[in-house]
């Protein structure tokens, strides 16, 4: 069975056109016209990527995103109206892995989806049995992260981000290089993707997220993992 993509969009015409374009990529496309419908469809069959328009009737895109995050680490792409509103950050904080602004070219969407699929299958540090950083332990092959003996539920993007940082402990990674390695973006990737994901990662891997001991901010340069 091929890759399954769930698109959540209330405008039927857009949904149909996007479905046609994504099917041209060889993917199976499920459709939902509301958040409620999306949750039903999500429960019905395993899904590889979810595409959510934040402007939905009923429960909105943010709410739907949080609802899916509670039960799954599936990659989520948000579709927002504007790039400079707080919608982007709000969407990322609700658990989205990436975002697009409307109207986007379907080619761009497929590129994002491919990057997410690659990300969820191929961490950079595969081959190491396990990596330990104090009370934090990463098991790359099993996609498992343990903090003080307790297994953490990271999303695939958070896991990939942590693995990239763990590939060179102590080395400072710039936002640009993390955008390139984790999201597959060029120079013009949005640094907020990295910032919000680091923030979310910290709420999981840090005992006190306000005083991080593992994922350290290097002012003006980027982030590093404390070795």
């Amino acid at each position, binding site marked *: 069975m091929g890759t399954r993509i769930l698109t959540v969009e209330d405008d039927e015409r857009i949904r149909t056109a996007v479905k046609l374009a994504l099917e041209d990529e060889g993917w199976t496309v499920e459709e939902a016209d509301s958040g409620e419908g999306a949750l039903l469809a999500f429960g019905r069959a395993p899904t590889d990527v979810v595409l959510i328009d934040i402007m939905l009737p009923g429960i909105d895109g943010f709410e739907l995103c949080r609802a899916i995050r509670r039960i799954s680490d599936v990659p989520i792409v948000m579709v927002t109206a504007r790039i400079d509103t707080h919608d982007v950050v709000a969407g990322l904080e609700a658990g989205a892995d990436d975002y697009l602004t*409307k109207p986007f070219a379907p080619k761009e969407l497929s590129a994002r989806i491919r990057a997410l699929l690659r990300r969820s299958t191929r961490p950079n540090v595969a081959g190491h049995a396990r990596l330990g950083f104090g009370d934090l332990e990463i098991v790359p092959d099993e996609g498992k992260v343990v903090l003080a003996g307790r297994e953490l539920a990271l999303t695939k993007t958070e896991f990939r981000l942590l693995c990239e940082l763990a590939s060179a402990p102590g080395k400072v990674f710039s936002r640009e290089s993390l955008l390139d390695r984790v999201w597959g973006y060029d120079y013009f990737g949005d640094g907020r993707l990295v910032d919000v994901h680091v923030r979310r990662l910290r709420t999981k891997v840090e005992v006190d997220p306000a005083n991080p001991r593992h994922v350290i901010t290097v002012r003006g340069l980027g982030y590093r993992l404390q070795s």
Partner: protein
Amino acid sequence: MAAPRWITRLRPKPLGLRARITLAFALGAALLSIVLASTTYVVTRGTLVRQREAVLLRQAYLNANQTIDAFGTNGGNILTRLQNLPLAGSKPVVVYQGRTTPIDPDVGLDAIPVELRNRAATGVPARMRFRLDGKPWLGVAIPIPGSNAVYYELTNLAELNKTLRSLAAVLVGASLLTTASGILLGMWASGRAVRPLAQAARAAEAIAGGRLDTRLEPVDDPDLRALTNAFNAMASALEMRVERDARFASDVSHELRSPLMTLSASAEVLQSRRDELPERAAVALDLLVGDVARFQGLVGDLLEISRFDAGAVHLNLEELLVGEFVANAVRASDAGEGVPVEVDDDAADSIIRADKRRLAQVVANLLDNARFYGGGATAVTVSLPEGPSPESVLIAVEDAGPGVPPEERHLIFERFARGTGAGRRSTTEGAGLGLALVTEHVRLHRGRVWVEDRTDGTPGARFVIELPVTE
């Protein structure tokens, strides 16, 4: 004959509020001090002169009485008697039986005014002020009863005048001092009076600059409260209106974006099957795909500029190495393919605080502009402006087109403006909003943009963005 135009320029500029308040204080202080000083001078002089005259008169009577005794004894002894009188600077003269006895040979009968002598001749005491050798004198004439002798006492009043002159000098000084204080007080008061206006001006500037939530602090002063309240009400109304416009723009954005989304996705599906289409359909599809992209760009620009108008654009600022940024921006733009980027060594590591995507859009728009109107950009350069310690960096896009005539150099940054010569060449290309958006973006980055001739002497336009560098 019509009045020459320069006459209007000779009309004095109306004074500012501060100057007027200061002037009013100064004039008031000057007027008041002049009136006070004049009154003081007149009153004091009157008093001093009267006192002096009274003293002199009394002294003259006493002296006259003593002199009378001398007449009783020995008329020849008068001079001795005169010399023994307590005179305090007065010069007595006794005229008796046509004989004049002056104590001072310089002040004799000739010194006594005829009028005073005439009045003394009537037998009553008289006094008179007169001038002798340009100096003020007081003359007192006392006819001695029982004889036709007259006792004159002449006193030089120069001393009194000297006192009055120093009084006048002191009063003038005091007046000047008071006027100066008036000016200072006026400056202070006018400063205080216009301070609320200056605050209002600053607030208005802040609002014009996009900080729509700026308000004036409430004040207790009932005169100012009206201004403050009106200003804040206006600012609130403006903010609400701007918010409504911004909401409208985002509503329109959603309405326009959805059909565009369908169009572009459908066009892409069709395009991937272009080979299966008949020849004529394929040509039609190319037109469709091309214009969907153009439409998308135009709508995007329109929405963007309406957001600028609504003050709803927020920059996502980060620190960028200008050389690296420009190279990437040129590479990422459609019209920048193959365009060389020349970065001066001293400019490469300049750091700017900018919104990466927006500034890349600026560069892309300039490259598009060069493609549409200048036959394509020939180079993009990054350099520092001339000067000892440049605080900005210049990013320039050059082309080899016809250039922009000086009279059009401002106009082309207006919305939907096109160069006259270049417009013919590509009537269908370009939305006409590209340069207007460049202006808005650069302004938001606290920079400037302009167009000039190429600096290397080759014909062509050079669009320059100047951006402040950070420390």
